[in-house]
């Protein structure tokens, strides 16, 4: 696969040429009638399931609404309630903990794996194997690890026995449940993230490495001075995607701990689900998702700013 062809912008001349061809009789409207036809289905989908719900979500967050009776406007009451809701703050804390652990381990491990793949082998089989967990559902992954990490019969605890370590209640211990879930999901996404980074590595021209090697730079030095800086735009994109994704952890929690023990894994997504579908508190749940929206937008903005995502060191080099 040549990634270059993917993200290289097409030469402007192509477009200009194609634009220039149609006879200039309906210059103002251009291809409007045909375009409307082509965009219509997607536009209907967009308005009905993205635009309208987004606006409606904002409105619902200002109401008291249990789905069965019409929403009643209550202004910013839901948002005020959030401030004093210790479950909300707990959910925020627990989610943050999850994100930090998940992203930390996933980033380090996937960069390492990507570099190893890049340097050692082009084998499709190896790449296929590491990608495998990504293909099966979160629910499947959660259940397999739920079994392997079981306190009584789980193979991991038997391994701990054998090593002379204490058995661990991975999902049952409130201090360990979140790290456990974070690591399980790292396992699922490691290969996928590594392959994204691997694709980025392949775009670095070999000549850069050759030059560095001629200068006698060590592998370690080449990694920090050449690979990482050149990889920055790709890393920025990968990080934004994975951080935003990991804020939305739900499936794993839903089938393993269901928020327990004692709220230790009640992440934001699960709390919103719980509020809306178990307690029929839709308005409040909508307010919470609005807050999550703002947080995610802020995180994405910060990340892109910090990593200067738009620029590539390649151009300057």
């Amino acid at each position, binding site marked *: 696969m040549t990634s270059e062809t993917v993200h290289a912008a097409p030469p402007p001349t192509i477009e200009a040429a194609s634009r220039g061809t149609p006879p200039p009789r309906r210059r103002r409207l251009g291809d409007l009638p045909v*375009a409307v036809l*082509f965009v219509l289905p997607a536009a209907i989908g967009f308005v009905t*399931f993205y635009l309208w*719900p987004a606006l409606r979500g904002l409105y619902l967050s200002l109401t008291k609404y249990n789905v069965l009776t019409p929403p009643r406007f209550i202004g910013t009451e839901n948002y005020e309630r959030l401030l004093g809701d210790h479950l909300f703050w707990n959910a925020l804390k627990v989610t943050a903990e999850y994100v930090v652990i998940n992203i930390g381990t996933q980033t380090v491990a996937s960069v390492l794996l990507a570099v190893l793949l890049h340097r050692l082998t082009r084998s499709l089989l190896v790449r296929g194997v*590491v990608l495998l967990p990504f293909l099966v559902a979160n629910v499947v992954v959660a259940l397999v690890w739920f079994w392997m990490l079981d306190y009584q019969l789980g193979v991991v605890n038997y391994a701990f026995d054998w090593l002379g370590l204490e058995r661990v209640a991975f999902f049952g211990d409130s201090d360990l449940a979140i790290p456990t879930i974070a690591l399980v999901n790292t396992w699922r996404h490691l290969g996928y993230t590594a392959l*994204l980074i691997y*694709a980025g590595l392949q775009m670095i021209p070999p000549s850069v490495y050759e030059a560095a090697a001629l200068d006698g730079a060590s592998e370690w030095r080449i990694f920090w001075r050449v690979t990482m800086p050149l990889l920055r735009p*790709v890393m920025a994109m990968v990080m934004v995607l994975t951080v935003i994704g990991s804020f939305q952890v739900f499936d794993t929690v839903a089938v393993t701990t269901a928020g327990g023990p004692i709220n230790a894994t009640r992440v934001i997504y699960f709390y919103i689900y719980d509020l809306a579908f178990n307690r029929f508190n839709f308005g409040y749940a909508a307010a919470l*998702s609005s807050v999550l929206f703002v947080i995610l937008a802020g995180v994405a903005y910060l990340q892109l700013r910090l990593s200067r995502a738009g620029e590539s060191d390649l151009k300057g080099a």
Partner: protein
Amino acid sequence: MMAAPTALAGRPRQARAIPWGRIAGWTVLVLVMAATLFPFYWMLRTSFSNTRSLAAGATDLLPVDFTFGAYRRVLGLSTTAEAVAEGGSSGTVNFWLFLRNSIVVATTVTVGQVFFSAMAAYAFARLRWPGRDVVFMLFLTALMVPPIFTTLPNFVLIKELGLLNTYLGIVLPHLLMTPFAVFFLRQFFLGVNAGLEEAARIDGAGHVRIFFRIILPVSKGPITTLAILTYITSWNDYFWPLLVGKDESVRVLTVALGIFRSQTPQGSPDWAGLMAATLFAALPMIILFAVLGRRIIDSIGYTGVK
């Protein structure tokens, strides 16, 4: 592939030195692969075990007290007495029904989403019309909106339309477009050679014809990529079908699995049954992977580096 300029550990180069760096690198790689594969093996091994006997042979590498019982239980083929004798739950996964539901949902979403998104992408990439860039920007901003924000109102909408527990209710939100699909395909359509299009136009072809006869065929690669990724995502989705498709008639495999898990008693879960069900749910994607492996692996690079 470039030649690794030095050994991985950065040792000084000597003629024919033992490549410690490569050895260390391969060791790590093999360990990662083992850690990746082991859970799949363990799932398989457990699914052929007798739940009752698992405690006695918890560390056995082979199935404990080999039996197809778990599969029979999950499929609802075994009697209650049989199930109890093997320490199983009476819960079943109506596998063929849920498999069919998963196929219907994932296929419909994939075909609809890719086709309608391709149409829109064509209009954004190859047609000239006032307001095009504004509308496209609007589509793009939707990429930023986290799903949960629209999921709750969408649930309300589907409920108001009376579509809870219908296929239509499950597929509708993703049937006509996703901002990502439109964005992704537009990138490729922009790069299609204008010469082809012109030649067709001189022959008197209209836009519809150009779209079907030129744009779609020359973009087969990216379209397949998008279709595969959409299929996987849709197949593995849990949250939305959990909300709108709980009813058995439209229940998909992921949701069924969650329900099966909650039916197995907390005290001593039916591990063999659970693993058999899990394997059933994972198998179709693994088969897809076996068939389309190369395509899927390559597609990961496509999507990330936008």
